């Protein structure tokens, strides 16, 4: 970076990096490193938000374009069925969620101390890589019980898949159990782990091979 003759303070460097991220000029590894840092560094995350707000007036440059109604596909991914009356599955949504006022947010929570009931096993007994999914009524916790993490530069990503719908990412699996706020464990849905590039699938759909999968059942 010899031609970069800008003399910047460390604060300015951070601020310029946040701006470059918001502007979108970084390559993928740089973007992933910014996103990873923003998860824990709140001051840095605030710089990103500030730049999003500073440049928000440029959003006027995006012309509207007619969007087809994609809600049926989106709702099928999130809720398991495009037609709410078709399946009784919606009880869990209408009742449980409204009462708890909890989004099905993929928010990492502290792992509960006592093991919750087992709802799915990902991988067969003899498989080299195996995960267990437990659910305590509020939180889905997925733990690796056999095998090793992905090699350097790759990650294991967890997906939940409603019948006939596209997978939804629940997060990246590390050595620690992955805990996701989830109000119910819909029976018959699939949990799967795929191999993805560092930072997870950039497209929102699995891109690598499936390493382990299992169906949610009332075990």
């Amino acid at each position: 970076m010899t031609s970069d003759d800008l003399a910047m303070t460390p604060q300015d460097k951070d601020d310029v990096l946040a701006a470059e991220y918001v502007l979108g000029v970084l390559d993928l590894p740089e973007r992933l490193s910014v996103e990873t840092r923003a998860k824990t560094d709140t001051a840095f995350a605030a710089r990103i938000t500030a730049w999003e707000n500073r440049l928000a007036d440029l959003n006027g440059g995006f012309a509207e374009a007619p969007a087809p109604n994609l809600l049926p596909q989106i709702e099928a991914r999130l809720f398991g069925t495009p037609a709410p009356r078709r399946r009784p599955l919606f009880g869990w949504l209408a009742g449980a969620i409204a009462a708890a006022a909890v989004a099905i947010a993929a928010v990492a929570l502290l792992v509960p101390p006592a093991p919750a009931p087992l709802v799915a096993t990902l991988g067969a007994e003899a498989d080299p890589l195996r995960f267990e999914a437990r659910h305590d009524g509020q939180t889905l916790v997925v733990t690796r019980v056999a095998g090793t993490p992905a090699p350097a530069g790759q990650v294991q990503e967890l997906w939940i898949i409603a019948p006939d719908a596209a997978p939804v990412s629940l997060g990246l699996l590390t050595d620690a159990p992955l805990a996701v706020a989830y109000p119910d464990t819909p029976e018959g849905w699939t949990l799967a782990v795929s191999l993805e590039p560092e930072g997870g699938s950039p497209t929102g759909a699995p891109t690598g091979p499936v390493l382990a999968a299992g169906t949610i059942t009332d075990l």
Partner: protein
Amino acid sequence: MEEDTVAGLIAKVAAADRAAFRDLYSATSSKLMGTLLRILGTRSEAEDALQEVFTRVWLRAGRFDPEKGRGMTWLIAIARNHAIDRLRSRSPAAAGDDGDELDSVADTSLSAEGSLIAKGEARRISDCFATLEPDRAAAVRGAYLDGLAYTDLADRYAVPLNTMRTWLRRSLLKLRECLDQ
């Protein structure tokens, strides 16, 4: 500041209100589709991305903080970030196909800029862009609206990558100074 109806809908979505989620889709999907189409270039990929964006909106709505910004700004940030991640993860072969798309997008960016200023929507930001040299202002706009990477910009302006970085960083610091006044 006028009432932020989009922010109100996002807050309801955070409480798992599915009717509000549908209202939010009706109210904002055209804008987000336009954003994705501009950056990704093809309707099929933009539609694919739109599904992912609204899935993320449902999952992340609880993290939206209306104190920190407007609802539409938050939504467009999710859409732009997803579109740019898609662009950056395209294989080099697929990225090669982009040449023509980028050229055609470049033409529309000029007219979009013109209408932006004409409508007076972004008076302040266009005043601040006017303090930059014209090609540097265009580079910043091109990056934001078309999802151009440093390497794309260096090609387009036929300057070495490091020169482009320096240009852009200097422009960003200047913009910050002007916009924060």
